[in-house]
């Protein structure tokens, strides 16, 4: 018995879709098993079509949709004939992936603290973690490492945690990479979480990068959005290239999936003082002799007049190069006084010496999420926007109607700030006096 010879399914060849490449770093080239992709100096691929075997790897790996398969008209014809006859393939790779990741369950939030004082970002993350845990139908764990930190477990429950691992030892009194790294890796090995979230703070970034390397898993930095796809994978969205683009990052073949989130990017969940949870004390300890670093001194800049916290402020009045001089910040201070706001600014204003560096908002300054952000004489460079675009309401005052700040503003006034700002201050003052 001989079956009629079926035509072979044509595989096609890869080609570049013009104008779509994002120069992501030669992912397509390194995915190609037959070396038929060369990169130009601009970082874009050139496909040598007659070497291509149509394996589709480059097309799958391209984040920008810049590669596609094409078929000759003859091949198209054969494809049309074969349509509907394809057999479902058993995906060995997918089965292997499942076997590897299945033991991992639960969402963890690392609770950052300094001298027993929790970092607000940890509670913001508890809100995100709660949503992820609910979509995955698993429990939300707080991970608390420190010395005399037992009280933080109850706080964690108030913000949404179901359980709290508590590692309370003198050796953890001051954050140092080595003991915290050992402690985290011990917990991850023992309890196998599927998601671990940390604040993208000095401490969080120091620890997360170290843990991910030791555990040999993926870590996505500075996420602004977190979600779960239909295969229980974490979809992590973050800005890159200085905020010019957003990227969704996946870590679907490895567990835990680790991510950091900057402070003030996620809203603080409501605190429920009546919440309860399960405290899980862990006896893990490390000998001081095994640690090769010591914190000799901590200097807080609480001293002096400048202890203004821009990052935590509910109202911010910000000034940029349009202010022209340091003295002119007085008009912003006046408006801020009426609103109970804090004065911040752009990097230009800080570089000019008009404001102290800790007031800078943006990529290399603070990320803020106030109720109202008033940008005066700030053009809205992308590096500034990434630091403030999640504010509830953004008000822009600029005399250039084309200034990019208007693209993120809720309300804008095109005008001279030296006229508009005092007028605003006056109006609010009048209203207050009328009420009084």
């Amino acid at each position: 018995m001989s079956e009629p010879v079926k035509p072979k399914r044509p595989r096609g060849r890869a080609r570049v879709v013009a104008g779509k490449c994002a120069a992501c770093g030669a992912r397509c080239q390194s995915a190609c098993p037959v070396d038929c992709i060369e990169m130009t100096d601009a970082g874009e691929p050139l496909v040598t079509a007659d070497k291509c075997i149509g394996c589709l790897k480059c097309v799958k790996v391209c984040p920008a949709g810049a590669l596609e398969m094409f078929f000759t008209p003859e091949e198209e014809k054969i494809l049309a004939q074969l349509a509907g006859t394809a057999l479902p393939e058993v995906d060995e790779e997918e089965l292997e992936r499942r076997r590897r990741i299945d033991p991992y369950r639960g969402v963890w939030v690392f609770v950052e603290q300094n001298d027993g004082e929790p970092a607000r970002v940890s509670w913001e993350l508890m809100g995100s973690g709660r949503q992820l845990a609910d979509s995955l139908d698993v429990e939300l764990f707080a991970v608390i490492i420190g010395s005399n930190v037992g009280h933080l477990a109850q706080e964690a429950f108030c913000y949404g945690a179901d359980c709290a691992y508590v590692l309370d030892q003198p050796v953890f009194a001051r954050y140092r990479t080595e003991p915290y790294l050992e402690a985290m890796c011990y917990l991850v090995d023992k309890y196998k979480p599927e998601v671990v979230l940390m604040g993208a703070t000095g401490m969080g970034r120091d620890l997360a990068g170290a843990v991910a390397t030791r555990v040999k898993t993926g870590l996505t930095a500075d996420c602004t959005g977190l979600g779960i796809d239909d295969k229980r994978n974490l979809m992590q969205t973050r800005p890159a290239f200085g905020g010019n683009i957003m990227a969704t990052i996946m870590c679907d073949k490895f567990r835990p999936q680790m991510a950091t989130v900057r402070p003030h990017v996620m809203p603080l969940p409501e605190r429920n003082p009546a919440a309860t949870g399960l405290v899980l004390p862990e006896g893990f300890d490390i000998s001081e002799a095994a640690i090769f670093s010591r914190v000799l001194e901590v200097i807080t800049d609480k001293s002096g007049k400048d202890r203004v916290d821009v990052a935590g402020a509910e109202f911010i009045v910000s000034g940029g190069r349009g202010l022209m001089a340091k003295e002119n910040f007085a008009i912003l201070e006046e408006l801020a006084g009426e609103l109970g706001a804090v004065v911040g600014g752009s990097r230009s204003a800080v570089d000019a010496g008009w404001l102290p560096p800790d007031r800078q908002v943006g990529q290399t300054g603070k990320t803020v999420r106030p109720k109202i952000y008033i940008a005066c004489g700030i053009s809205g460079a992308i590096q500034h926007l990434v630091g403030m675009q999640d504010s509830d309401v953004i008000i822009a005052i600029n005399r250039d109607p084309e200034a990019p700040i208007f693209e993120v503003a809720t309300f804008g006034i095109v005008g001279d700030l030296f006229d508009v700002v005092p007028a605003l201050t006056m109006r609010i003052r009048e209203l207050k006096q009328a009420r009084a």
Partner: protein
Amino acid sequence: MLVVACIKQVPDTTQVQIDPVTNTLIRDGIPFIVNPYDSHALEESLRLKDSNGFTAVALSMGPPNAEATLRKALALGVDRSILLSDRVFGGADTLSTSNVLAAAIQRLAEQDEIGIVFCGKQTIDGDTAQVGPGIAVRLGFTQLTLVDRIEKLDLAKKTVTVRRKLEGRYEIVEARLPAMITVVRELNRPRYPTVPMRLASAKAQVEVWNNEVLKLDVNSVGLKGSPTWVSRIFSPQRTEGEILGDGMRDPVGAALLLVDRLLEEDLLAV
């Protein structure tokens, strides 16, 4: 003793723009620069060369054209510049990037003792701040991030004391060498190349190490060794704001309109 500076060549992101029609990055003519933080890492390694007689090595993983960046490092005075380049290194995330950099440093350590590895605090393109810790953990070096001052270097006791710049506080930390230190802008002011140095560097040799030199498992580098992958790239969504009044001719009127709107939407408590 060696001091190593890890430097990355990056597109100047201040000049990157999005094509409003295709929603993609316009990169034509965008210059590549040394990641700004890395020029401070480089400067600090040159200072250790000047003050303590360290041998300074600049290290970069990247495509062949990253040689230009390493040549600049030679012009500034490093003793050796090494480019880690191989097509199997492409498409790397931070885990596989730190694997290649750590392997190269390990190789250097076979030739001479390593004192300090300097990295930038973060890059301006990937912007993760993860590669430094990755290198430290892989090599078992002490990890000191966000350093804005080297307080003391004690080569007899093999310790370094640094100041770390954290949110609202500084920490003075003493740690054992070898150390991996990530640096912030305040650490130093990078020097400019002198004309003779620049001329000499044009002839100097940038060493290129591919995977035949490093002999890493191809499944642990580049795309294959990367647990994370970028599934989608898109431009940030922005909604056009509402312009109130005519602030040029009637600033007071515009201000009144704004306050009314804020009160209407219950945003202002007066």
